[in-house]
C-alpha cells in the first residue's frame, strides 16, 4: 500500500520522531470474524484478490480445502480448514478460520522493521506496509507473533493484509467484509464490534458452546482483527491460532536495550582510544632502540664469524 496522507500515523517503524497527529478524534476500527457463522465459501479470499488486484500462479491440489496451502505475497487472506474431533461431545467439528494480519495494537512487525516508514500504524489501528520504503530484509517476519508477512522473491517487498486501508480511508468497509454472504465478517469501531461479539457469545453460550468467547489477545495489547470462537479456551485447534501471542522476548531484547548499549559501547571505545592517545600518546621507536638493535645484530654476526673461523678444517 502507498502512504495515505488522510490517515494519521500513531507509529512509524524505525523512527524516533513523533508522527504527525492532528486528527485525534479517529475511532479505532476492528474487523470481527465470527468463525461460528463462517460457511467456508472463500468469497472473502476472492474479494481480497479482486480489490487488491492480486493474481497468484495456479497451484496444485494438495488434498486439502486450503487453497493455496499458505499465505504468500499475493495471498493476503486464507481460509484454513480444520477437522476437529470434539472429545466432549464426540462430534466432528469443521473449524474454518480466515487467516491474515491481525493488526495488533502493539505490532511486532513494526517493532522489528529497520526501514524508516516501511511499516506504519494509523490512528484507527490499521497496521500498513508502505512498500516503497520496504528493503525486503524479513525482520517483520521474525517480529510477527502470528507468522503473517511474506516477502516476494520477485520485488523483495513484504506483503500482508492492509485491512483495505485504502477503502477504509474513504469510508468503505474492507472488501472481504463486503463480500461475506453470511455476515460472518463485520467491520466497524472496535467498541461496536466488541459489543456485538458479546451478544453473539451470549447466544452461543445459550446454545451449549459454554467456552465461546472473543479472541482479542492482551499479549499484543489487543488486535484490530478479532475472532468469535466457539472454543475460545483452546484457540490452537483453529489451525494453530496462538494461545497467548506476544512479541517474542528475543525480538524485544534485540530491538530494545542492546541498540543504545551497543552504540554507546562503540562510541565509548573510540573515546577511550582518543583519551589514551592524549594521555599516553603514540608509542614511537626511539633512536636507542635502533642502536640497540644494530648492536645486537653486530654481536650475532661476530659470534657467527668466530664460530666459522673456529670450525676445524
Amino acid at each position: 500500500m502507498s502512504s495515505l496522507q488522510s490517515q494519521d500515523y500513531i507509529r512509524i517503524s524505525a523512527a524516533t520522531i513523533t508522527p504527525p497527529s492532528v486528527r485525534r478524534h479517529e475511532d479505532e476500527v476492528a474487523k470481527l470474524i465470527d468463525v461460528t457463522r463462517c460457511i467456508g465459501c472463500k468469497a472473502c479470499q476472492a474479494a481480497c484478490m479482486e480489490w487488491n488486484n492480486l493474481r497468484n500462479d495456479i497451484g496444485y491440489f494438495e488434498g486439502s480445502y486450503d487453497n493455496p496451502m499458505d499465505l504468500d505475497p499475493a495471498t493476503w487472506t486464507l481460509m484454513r480448514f480444520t477437522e476437529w474431533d470434539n472429545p466432549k461431545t464426540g462430534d466432528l467439528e469443521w473449524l474454518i478460520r480466515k487467516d491474515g494480519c491481525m493488526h495488533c495494537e502493539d505490532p511486532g512487525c513494526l517493532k522489528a522493521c529497520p526501514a524508516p516508514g516501511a511499516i506504519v500504524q494509523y490512528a484507527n489501528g490499521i497496521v500498513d506496509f508502505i512498500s516503497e520504503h520496504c528493503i525486503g530484509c524479513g525482520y517483520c517476519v521474525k517480529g510477527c507473533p502470528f507468522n503473517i508477512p511474506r516477502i516476494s522473491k520477485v520485488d523483495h517487498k513484504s506483503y500482508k493484509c492492509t485491512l483495505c486501508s485504502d477503502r477504509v480511508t474513504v469510508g468503505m468497509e474492507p472488501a472481504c467484509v463486503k463480500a461475506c454472504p453470511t455476515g460472518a465478517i463485520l467491520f466497524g469501531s472496535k467498541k461496536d464490534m466488541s459489543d456485538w461479539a458479546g451478544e453473539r457469545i451470549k447466544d452461543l453460550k445459550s446454545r451449549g458452546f459454554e467456552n465461546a468467547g472473543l479472541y482479542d489477545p492482551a499479549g499484543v495489547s489487543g488486535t484490530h482483527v478479532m475472532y468469535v470462537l466457539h472454543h475460545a479456551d483452546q484457540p490452537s485447534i483453529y489451525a494453530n491460532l496462538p494461545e497467548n501471542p506476544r512479541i517474542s522476548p528475543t525480538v524485544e531484547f534485540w530491538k530494545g536495550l542492546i541498540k543504545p548499549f551497543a552504540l554507546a559501547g562503540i562510541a565509548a571505545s573510540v573515546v577511550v582510544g582518543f583519551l589514551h592517545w592524549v594521555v599516553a600518546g603514540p608509542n614511537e621507536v626511539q633512536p636507542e632502540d635502533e642502536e640497540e638493535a644494530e648492536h645486537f645484530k653486530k654481536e650475532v654476526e661476530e659470534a657467527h664469524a668466530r664460530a666459522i673461523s673456529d670450525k676445524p678444517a
Partner: protein
Amino acid sequence: MTRPKDSLIRNPTITRINHWITATCFVLLMLSGLSMFDPLLFWMSNLFGSGQWTRAAHPWIGLVLVISYAGMIVQFWRDNLWTRDDLAWLLAIDRVLANEEESVPQVARFNAGQKFVFWSMAFLIPVLLFTGILIWDYYFESFSSIETQRAALLIHSMAAIAAILIWVIHVYAAIWVRGSMRAMTQGYVTPGWAWRHHRKWFRALVSTGSQGPTPRTSVDEPRK
C-alpha cells in the same frame, strides 16, 4: 616496494593484499550492518545506493570476508598460538599502555593483544557466518523456524557488536604503535621497531639471518 636495506619484512605482499581485502569487507559490513541494526544509522544505507541494495549486498560481502579471513588464518595461526610469554605480557599490560616497553616481557611475532584480536575474530566470523545464513531471507528463509531465526538475529547482532569493538581496538593499536601501519601498507619495519615491540621475533630473525617475516628453519649454522 622500496625499503631500507636493513629493514625487516613484517607482512609479505600476499598477506597485505589479503589483509586489505578483509579490512574493506569489514568496513562495508559494519556500515551496512549498523544501518540495518539501529534506525539512527539507517542513513548509512544510502552509501550502498538504497536500503534494498544494502540488504542485498551485505551477505555477499560477508561471504567474501569469510573466505578472505580464512586466508588470514592460514597465514597467521601458527604465530598466534598461545605461549607462556603471553601471560607475562598480559600481566604487564599497565606498562604496555603507558608506553614503558623497556620493562615489559619480550614477545615473539605477535603479543597477547594481537593474538586476542586474531582469535576473537577467528571465533566471531564463523558465528556471524552461520547466524547470517539463517537470516539470509532470500535463499534460506525456509531452512529454519522463525524462532530459530529470531535467535540468529540476536546472536548475529551481538557478535557483530563484539567484532566492531575488537576492530576499534585493532585500528587504534595500529595508530598508537607507530610503524605498525607501514608494516601493513608497505610491509616492512625497522630493526629498532622489531627490537622495541617484538624482541624475541627480532632475535630469531637475526640469529637465523632471515629478513622476515618468519625465522629461517634450515640454517647453515656452524656445527659445534
